[in-house]
């Protein structure tokens, strides 16, 4: 999805082995206009529930969104 709204979010401090170098990082479940949901990474400014986000980039198959 190109844009969405934050349904919930967290900032991960204790990362799984393959993402230890990224921590802390923010994750969110976002909801698109059609109601579809996805779990994505957030880049840049931290987001909160209800914030609008837009697609930022794909890094090695991981979708990053940023505050719109």
């Amino acid at each position: 999805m190109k844009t969405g709204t934050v349904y919930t979010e967290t900032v991960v401090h204790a990362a799984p082995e393959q993402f230890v170098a990224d921590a802390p990082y923010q994750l969110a479940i976002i909801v698109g206009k059609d109601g579809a949901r996805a779990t994505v990474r957030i880049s840049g400014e931290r987001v909160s529930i209800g914030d609008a986000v837009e697609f930022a980039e794909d890094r090695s198959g991981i979708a990053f969104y940023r505050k719109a």
Partner: protein
Amino acid sequence: MRPVAIVGIGKTAFGAFPDRDLRSLAVEAGQKCLADARVSASQVEAFHLGNFAGPSFVGQNHLAPYIAGALGINGAPCTRFEAACASSGAAFAHAVAAVAAGIHDLVLVCGVEKMTSQTTAKVAEILAGAGDMSGEGRVGATFPALFAMIARRHMYQYGTTREQLAAVAVKNHANGFKNPQAHMRKLITMEQALAGKPISEPLTVYDCSLISDGAAAIMLAPLERAAEFTSKAVRILGVAQTSDQVALDSKEDITTFRAVRLAAEKAYKMAGLGPADIQFAELHDCFTIAEIIATEDLGFVKKGEGGPYALSGQTSLTGERPINTSGGLKSKGHPVGATGVAQLCDVAMQIRGEAGERQLTRNSIGLAQNLGGSGATAVVTILGAQ
């Protein structure tokens, strides 16, 4: 269907045991259970093992006959059940069905996990496999992260507070402090719980259950034969295992576990009881928010009232409905594959009057709730004195 009883229980202590391997833990619990039920290994008609990730944690597969053989069980069907943190709850539910249906009389159910030989980051990676590795797992969602997102949403929708989450940890540590078999026998204060190191915001280290080694076992028999084995039989009044989607983002409302509500409904119906009849419970507090949501999903309180309920003192040892008198996963420990059976042992110990300093006086009907993943498997069991 025949009524089924628990005629023996056995547990190892939970903790970090660098000199113990997976099999020796399971064998210790199994042998204690056989002795408690006064049953010899040759009498066991089936062996059900709950284990989440033995192959990943310790590199051993084919675990059920591997453990059963060391216990002296030969020839009986031996099967491993995997349902994430509800693995041994699932092993138990299937064992009850087999005894109730008359397929077997004596079934030994064991749960085991050996986790502490791996680094915390590696454990987080292995546990993440209980989620959807093609979605949430791929972007870096650990289990604390999934439950942190659940907590955030619960706080947003119902006004649940950090203090209410912390109250669960403070209470469960107070109970575990009195449990000689608990992993972390340490009292914590509200101030400490609130100032914990962040794991996945808003959850701190004090909101998360422990990475533990341990095993637990239960012997089942038809109720009509229970007196052959024990004078302290505990009756299974109701049990149900249910499921839901694995991925958290595929659930419409993440502030409730649909599988738990469904399992509770079925278990209550089977027992002919309701939430008001449950005197005490062992709930799956893998994270503090999970205990709060469980009290709502089981009908102890209305939706959204789990937070205030946690802070009210009503769920403490001296409250009107004590929850996690064992210390729960938070303080007793959470060797994931062992947890479901360990909870049932803890409920049975209360009913048998063997809970020591934590013994309740209203102890005739107790409930255990075991959760797999972020709610894709649930097992709810209601146990009663005969």
